[in-house]
């Protein structure tokens, strides 16, 4: 068995153990331990996805999904993990959109955890539809992204910033995999009274 295979098995095993830990923490009402276990599991998920993406075997399974369900589920999952206010705004979201639910969930979860690290009081999730795109956004009320990160394409971002670089690279990759009629999904970072992470997916 080569290292990559062994690593994949180990990741799988560790995720199972983190799942047990998370469930125990949830049962005891321990938000910090719950957050620690779930966030660690989320990084392992990204690591495995990145490995698959490099091998070219990160398949995509696009189907009709409900954006509001996804955001509400994410908000409910992270709300239990901290004292921050996590709000969802789906008033301009479409009923259905076409994307790979588990990949998009992974990308948004990573953005939410990042926002939680920097937020002062609140994290806001939103989905907005326009004629061409569905735009998911995750914003916080922290200090915002450093100037150097803005206006850069995500694959130019350094891989070092508190481990979030991997999340951004992967986000860019997953977004681009969502293609329809010549349009590719994309990531955009900006500041607006805090950091704003945007993920656009083509109609």
């Amino acid at each position, binding site marked *: 068995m080569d290292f990559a295979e062994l690593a994949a098995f180990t990741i*799988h095993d560790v*995720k*199972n153990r*983190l*799942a*047990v830990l*998370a*469930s*125990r923490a*949830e*049962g005891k009402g321990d938000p910090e331990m*719950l957050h620690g*276990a*779930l966030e660690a*599991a989320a990084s392992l*998920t990204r690591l*495995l996805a990145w490995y*698959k993406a490099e091998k070219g075997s990160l*398949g995509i*399974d*696009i*189907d*009709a999904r*409900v954006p509001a*369900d996804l955001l*509400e*589920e994410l908000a*409910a*999952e992270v*709300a*239990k993990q901290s004292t921050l206010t996590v709000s969802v705004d789906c008033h301009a979201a479409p*009923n*259905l959109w*076409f994307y790979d639910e*588990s*990949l998009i*969930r992974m990308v948004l979860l990573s953005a939410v955890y990042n926002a939680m690290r920097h937020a002062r009081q609140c994290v806001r999730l939103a989905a907005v539809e326009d004629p061409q795109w569905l735009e998911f956004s995750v914003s916080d009320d922290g200090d915002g992204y450093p100037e150097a990160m803005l206006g850069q394409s995500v694959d130019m971002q350094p891989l070092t910033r508190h481990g979030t670089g991997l999340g951004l690279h992967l986000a860019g990759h997953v977004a681009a995999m969502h293609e*329809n009629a010549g349009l590719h999904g994309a990531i955009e970072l900006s500041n607006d009274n805090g950091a704003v992470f945007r993920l656009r997916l083509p109609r």
Partner: protein
Amino acid sequence: MAIHSPYSDKSILILDDLPEMRSSLRTQVGTLGCEKVAVSSNVKDALEQFKTTTFDVILCDYYLAGGTDGQQFLEFLRTRNVIGRGVLFVMVTAEKGYESVVTAAECLPDDYLLKPFTAETLKMRLERLLEKKKRLARVDQMQDKGNWPEVISACDQIIAAKDRYLVDVLRIKGNAMLLAGRAEAAVDFYQTMIDMRPMPWAKLGLARALQKVGDTARCKETLSDLISESPRLMAAYDLLGELHLADGDADAALATLDSAREISPNSLARHRAIATVAEEKGDFERVEQALEQVVKKTRNSPLRETVDFARLGNALTEMGEAGKAVTLLEEARTSFKGDANNPLLAAVEAVAQQKAGHPEKAAAAMERALQGDPSKLDARVAMAVAKACLTTGRQEQAQTILKNLVQTNPDSTELHDRVSAVLRDNGSPELAAQLVSESIREIIHLNNEAVRRAKSGELAVASEMLTEAAHRLPGNMQVVSNAAAALLFDVYNNGLDPVKLRTAQSFQQAVQAQAPSHPKLAEIAELMNRIRSKYAPAKK
């Protein structure tokens, strides 16, 4: 104290081989207010639970001990109708990526839950899925009954509402159109879907519809496209393999299925598909290779299939290893309670025993093979029973079975070739050409004679002739539908005969179930209406 919860009346089964995962899932489910929760560590135990409990929700881990996985378990439950479509099946996995390596849409779980998740996530997910089941309840019921026209109309109602279930229901509708025999309409339907968004399931549906309307070239093109875009969609390979096989190109069919197996090497369905094509090709070494894997993986599992053992036994016998075949088949017969009299298993054993030099054991097996009514057997099984008859010197019985097969399928030259081959390869070459043509002549003569009698006013004679033939050939839709029409015509002209009317109705239902788009059905329905209006006043 009873806490009100939408789940308190739901019965839930948790299946996971890891004890700590089971208890963690159990705790999470408990916090939702579920009171009826059953827990299993393996498939065998889970199947036991199904005998006494009707579950509403199944939470199943993808990895299961004992050489099986959640997908195989689900396929077993659905293909054996252990659970209806109204039962919620949620697959719990540690990573994404299994969803596309499945053979058929009806074997997809309702949802995947990625570990780890919180009780809150589980709750929201279950709420939504149960809401969906409620909304699709009628669609599911009609699908379980195989009533495709009703499935379509139930789908149309939901489609008109354009709610969040729109695409789910469109997908079901397309499949129902194909199964209702509306292939032409299905081509247009799927094309519209693809224009909206080229989803893999829509392309697969288009390919299936194109196959049914006979546009093989466009069908192949669609499939090659689909395979290069979604290489994990196993059903695409199966269909392409089928097309190659229909062209008589078994090598290309095998190559297609081999590439599917490389992507999903652990799937039993892959090995079985390869075995089927190899059988067709007469490549019994490949059959043995493929089924050996399946038998090894399922030998001690409740998911084992008698048919796999029978087909492997047949391959071994064909390869001249009758002794080995006998050992395997005797094992299957003695250990599969309830399936010892399986006609295929018994027929294959009869041949193996005969070739291994045990004629008495062969005769005993033959008796088991002929226990039921051979005319009710599936064509493949009937062929195996006929072959066993020929091997053990029961020429006449073999001829009866084969004649029945030909007369049930008078237009299938493919089947006629197989029938000739069975006779030729098993010691009756002189009969090979003759039996097929005579059987066909006989059925044509019967039809003509019935028509002649009917035209000359002997309606009762005509309906009697066709009724007798329909009972003998329940799979011949032309005969069965003609019998229904003749009986109704007889009743319409000669007076209300409840026995004839009931027989006609049962023929009508048989045609509706097996060939819902049969052209004669309209005429039968029309006759029914005429009879109803003619005799209705007399009922008062």
